[in-house]
């Protein structure tokens, strides 16, 4: 059978539609979820199909409504709560961190909180300091939460479905620049595990391990490196809790070198955690110190001139890998497709 291609956002929409169709206890809620633009298309058409009592708008009360969703979850429902940007979810940290994450534990296992929270990470087009943060490390620090970052359309559907079916609170972080990326996605119930990294491309000289959108940049970096004879192995890390150190260690045992790339800040971030785990578990395999590619300790600037300098890209990953490989090969960045680098591809037009 021919593979069916879906975009990442279509895969998210299909996962939600399938979960709503299969399980009457599932509902979908967020500011703008049933609205005309439908969370960048990812919820479009769902209210028409499932009705306004299952696909719901809500007051702009991110904290209170997370508590409300938690209440429905402990009463047996399976809410999917959507934040159009991670930055708004910051208002719900109390309900997520103090309450949802601990609800099962602090009552001795008496209740379960099957809450799924979708949060979208922005980038470019002047999103600026409060519309483009990538705060996965905050959530990854909290026991009781599961934190996942699907990078492919297949995982977008499969991991969101797994999140809805899981009995723990799950944070699903979706990168806005992945929304238009297409991939093969199975029809019907499609579940992908909420743990385990995936080797996307095999190689023997250096490991490039990425989260979310940075997996794409790692794949592009691997192409650049291949042009100078360096074979990079690319790993889609997929989840923060847990980080699959076994797959990373197996790769580093082969390559002896690793660059970890994340969409968030480097300090106290996901790349710091991966690097610590590599030091603990794969130290004896390392030929070079582990390297990290992540955001600098600077809030997101709005102007494209600074944003272009702010976000690391494939060329940055590839050049770091070259250093690890003691290569003095010259790598040229491919000419940009747009005047500024603040959009994922030329068809993409702001504002969003």
């Amino acid at each position, binding site marked *: 059978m021919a593979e069916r291609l879906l975009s990442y956002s279509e895969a998210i929409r299909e996962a939600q539609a399938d979960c709503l169709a299969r399980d009457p206890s599932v509902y979908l809620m967020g500011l703008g979820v049933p609205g005309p633009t439908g969370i960048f298309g990812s919820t479009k058409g769902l209210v028409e199909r499932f009705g306004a009592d299952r696909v719901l708008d809500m007051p702009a009360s991110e904290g209170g*409504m997370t508590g409300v969703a938690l209440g429905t979850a402990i009463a047996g429902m399976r809410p999917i709560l959507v934040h159009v940007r991670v930055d708004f979810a910051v208002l719900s940290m109390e309900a997520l961190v103090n309450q949802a994450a601990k609800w099962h534990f602090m009552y001795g296992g008496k209740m379960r909180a099957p809450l799924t929270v979708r949060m979208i990470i922005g980038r470019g087009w002047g999103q600026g300091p409060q519309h483009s943060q990538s705060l996965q490390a905050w959530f990854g620090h909290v026991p009781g939460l599961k934190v996942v970052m699907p990078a492919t359309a297949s995982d977008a559907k499969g991991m969101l479905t797994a999140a809805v079916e899981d009995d723990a609170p799950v944070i699903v972080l979706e990168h806005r620049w992945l929304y238009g990326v297409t991939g093969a996605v199975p029809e019907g119930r499609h579940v992908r595990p909420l743990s385990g990294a995936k080797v996307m491309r095999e190689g023997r000289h250096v490991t490039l391990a990425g989260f979310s959108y940075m997996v794409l940049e790692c794949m592009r970096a691997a192409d650049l490196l291949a042009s100078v004879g360096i074979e990079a192995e690319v790993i889609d890390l997929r989840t923060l809790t847990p980080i699959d150190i076994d797959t990373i260690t197996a790769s580093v045992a082969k390559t002896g070198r690793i660059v970890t790339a994340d969409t968030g800040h480097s300090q106290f971030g996901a790349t710091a955690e991966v690097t610590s785990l590599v030091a603990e578990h794969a130290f004896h395999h390392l030929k070079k110190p582990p390297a990290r590619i992540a955001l600098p300790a600077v809030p997101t600037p709005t102007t494209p001139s600074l944003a272009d300098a702010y976000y690391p890209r494939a060329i940055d990953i590839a050049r770091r890998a070259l250093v690890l490989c003691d290569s003095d090969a010259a790598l040229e960045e491919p000419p940009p497709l747009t005047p500024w680098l603040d959009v994922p591809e030329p068809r993409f037009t702001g504002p969003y």
Partner: protein
Amino acid sequence: MTTFPDNPVAMSNLPPPADVRVEMLRSLLRIRLVEEEIVRRYGEGEMRCPTHICIGQEAPPVGVSAHLRRTDAVFAAHRSHGHYLAKGADLDAMIAELYGRETGCARGRGGSQHLVDLDAGFMGSAPILASTVSVGVGVAWAAKRRGEDRVVAVYFGDGATEEGAFHEALNFAGVNRLPVVFVCENNLYSVHTPLDVRQPARGIHEFGPVNGMAGVQGDGNDVDSVWALAGQAVTRARQGQGPTLLEFMTYRRKEHCGPGEDDALGYRPVAEVRRWHDRCPVQNYERRLVAEDLVTELDVQSMREAIAAEIAQAFEAARAAPFPAAADLGRYVYPSDQENA
């Protein structure tokens, strides 16, 4: 006492039926005696968790719970022993929880601040002031969506009404006319900070009407008047007429957290402390029922003795119960089908 004409909760002048009043006295006495035993033994250092004693604030949970069914749900905050016991939750499991034992209601993972008894409809307590308010609203919303006959009562203090989550929860309950009774026990202090430096002069119950529900202030040290106001609020919720915000004026007798008195700190005026001391909700109710010939002093004495025996047994069982095993440290972080194996 204030009522709001656009959404009135009329005061009833009828006292509760005699049998209800006797049961409420028993419930008041039971909470008081449990708290006094915790106070007496806390210094032994075996109850190793922050414990907020509710002596002086027994009337709101007793008067509210008198109208609740076992299937109705209750949420509370940090000072929640009274809410838990008044709802009929398990005393042995609460004491064992304070002692950190595996037989505790939260298997020792929660302590005094995280009580739970699902069989009794006590669905949780948490010390971040307003946090369980929205969770309770969620349970009420789930009940309404599924057509279940279930009322949710959420207890919180005056401090909680200064947190955003409280207002967000009231707004949502109001717009959806959810079956919730919001019960504010206004004891005038958040830890040591008086109400008048935290809030402008107003009644907390005034947040009711602006959120589409009745808001009523009542005497939180008089269980009969709590019973009257709560009865109407619970009835409204049960009949689909939406939520109510009840504000009960009351007073904490002990220090904020722990078994002691802290009047020497001087943060509460002596005359105020004395005035509230004279308004003891347990002692005055006992006197009232004796004066009205509903019970004799002998009846009260035998109530006390029966309760004392129950309490002694609960403490004995708790202290004999096992602690959770260190090997089980990671249990219940994430749900699994094997976790209770």
